[in-house]
């Protein structure tokens, strides 16, 4: 079976949905971060897939964008984890249900 663009898009959509589900349903802040990372990975997969199936895929634009996005994702994860630690120090919990100080 040759991999088609549709296959990649389906996989990426699945990955995105799983990530979204994780981000929506988990209570622990770190798992939410992991879910967000999965959504990012899905977006990267789309970049690569569209680039790869483009007839003029000589220039490595898709890979470049994906690599940049991975680097940014790494930075985002670092900031996110630092936030989790800061939140934990302040509220003594990482359960996002209990973090409702922004309630209107």
């Amino acid at each position: 079976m040759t991999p088609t663009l549709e296959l990649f898009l389906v996989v990426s959509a699945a990955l995105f949905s799983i990530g979204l589900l994780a981000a929506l349903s988990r209570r622990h802040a770190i798992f939410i971060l992991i879910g967000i990372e999965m959504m990012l990975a899905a977006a990267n997969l789309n970049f690569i897939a569209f680039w790869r199936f483009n007839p003029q895929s000589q220039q490595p634009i898709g890979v470049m964008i994906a690599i940049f996005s991975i680097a940014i994702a790494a930075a985002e994860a670092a900031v996110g984890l630092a936030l989790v630690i800061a939140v934990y120090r302040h509220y003594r919990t990482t359960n996002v249900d209990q973090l409702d100080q922004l309630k209107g």
Partner: protein
Amino acid sequence: MNRWIIDYLWLICAVPFAASLVILSLPNDRHKSAATLAVAGQIAALAMSFFAFLPTLQTHGFRAVRNFTWFTFGDQALRLGWLLDPLAAVMLMMIALVGLCIFVFSTGYMAGDKNFVRFFAYLSFFSGAMLGLVISNSLLLLFICWELVGLASYLLIGFWIERPSAAAAAKKAFVTTRIGDMGFFIGLLWLYGRSGTLLFYDRGNGCLESAGLAMLGASAAFIALLIFCGAVGKSGQFPLHVWLPDAMEGPTPVSALIHAATMVAAGVFLVARVYPLFSLGAINGVTPSLTVVVWIGVTTALMAALIAMAQADIKRILAYSTVSQLGLMMVSLGVGGVAAGMMHLLAHGFFKALLFLGAGSVIHGCHGAQDIRKMGGLRRLMPITFSTYAIGMMALSGVPLFFSGGWTKEEILQVTAHWPASHVPYSLLLAGIILTAFYMTRQMIYVFFGHRRSASQHAHESPRVMTMPLIALAICAILFSIVLTPAWPWLHDFLTGSPARFEIARLIQPALFLSLVLVGAGVALGICIYRNAGSQVRDRSAEIDPLQFAQPELFRFLENKMWIDELYARTVISFSWMSARLFDWMDRNFWDRLVRGVGAIGQLFGTFTASVDERGINVGVDETTIGTRGLGRLLSAAHSGQVQTYLGIIAIGMLALLLFYAWLA
């Protein structure tokens, strides 16, 4: 069969990885299935290693390579691959076999630990990463496995995470090796920039083949030294050896795995693998990079042997002996004896695993005590542990004729003696061999002879599942010497790719008598000094080491590991602290003030516009505000403060947009 195993060589490392993943997904109380899976994965790896070993026997200097493209990047293709040659084949056999013994031992040693399942998952992961490291045909793939090995060691050293000392030791191991890896990575990039490939062998175009080497020119020495930085970190060479003794905080089987089969072997293996880089442009077998390797090795070997003399923790003594033996291997590689160094690495893998597992058995029997001054008299209580430990001790000391360590040490002495650059390393190695025999004798006397002391009162022999691996490894440590003797130097010729010939006359060599005298001197010295160490059971003076009694200052210096940790704490670590403080201060006092200054300008504008607002625009707005407030109260109900609710609304909005576009199309 031969073709099949070469085509699917990657399975050797994939199977333990897969086992590790499956174990990781098991529930926490499935001890039996976790152990079964891990051991089964290791047996499969051993069987495949054996089949991979067979084709290398058939032709001399066998080398099979399979390369594939990982990804293309513009017109550059990044290629990885695996490689089977005698060096990889013997390493595979050793890692898989020693690993299997350690896995079996662990099922007994870790029984009752609440994180048993996690332990076996990490253990399989460790073994898989190391097996992948030895078969990789690309420096990049090797580097990836190298880092995985580092990660696995971090997880396992800090396995008892609730102990602060274990967590600190894991962090120390990780950060210290990372310093070396930084050098390794720079070397890797430099090599890629110069030669355009990271494949070792690629039909004449690899970076270790003549065409690739020719492109390097004078930079080869620097690249080799940068790669050596990685080996220094991983193999615990001076000055990055500090993590290895602290790694004793992990469970004992982990120490055995780190010190015998995986981790530290990786550094020596790396140097052996990229040896053409080191020896490029050698004059008389000497290059600047190899000279550095020799001196680092000899410093490490002697320094660690000296420190080992004054340690009291049974595992720490073994840890320093590992550091010292690794130094010996580095010397051997540096003076041109690649085969001798690798032979010592393999022999060391067997007997050091034996010693560590023996130490684990002793600790298990003494209910967790590790101080050798509190043991004693275990010879009668733990006969199997004692006899296997004695075999390991004699192999490590290098007793000639019957023990594998003796032959390999002789081999190393011979190549070092013929090093044209200097004779100092040779004489220092001789001193190192005496010291090794000495401190191992000291440890034996303290642990197994004399009267029982506080920790060994209720000692008992370990269960079968723990003594069986000991016996197996002891047999390996002795039988392995068959392929090492100068009369039939099969392993040596196998590694160098020439046919072995049997010649009994070569058995008797000057080096044989030399090492007999050296080991004899070390053991005799040990017995002389520690003869009475274990006999006065109630006498308080038995707690004081005779060496400490004679030379208290020197002993303190050695006992505290030559103050190297303290030196690092004062220099590198405090520098890092200082810079952190400096940046903190900058943040608080400089950047913060800058930001506040900008803020003040904003405030000024704000006050200005506020006064305009108050007087000018306020009137009509007030009315609007009252209406807005009502609306706001209505909307604020939607703001639950729950971040996930917001996220859900965003997701629904996105879905709606998507449907809208679908409808448009």
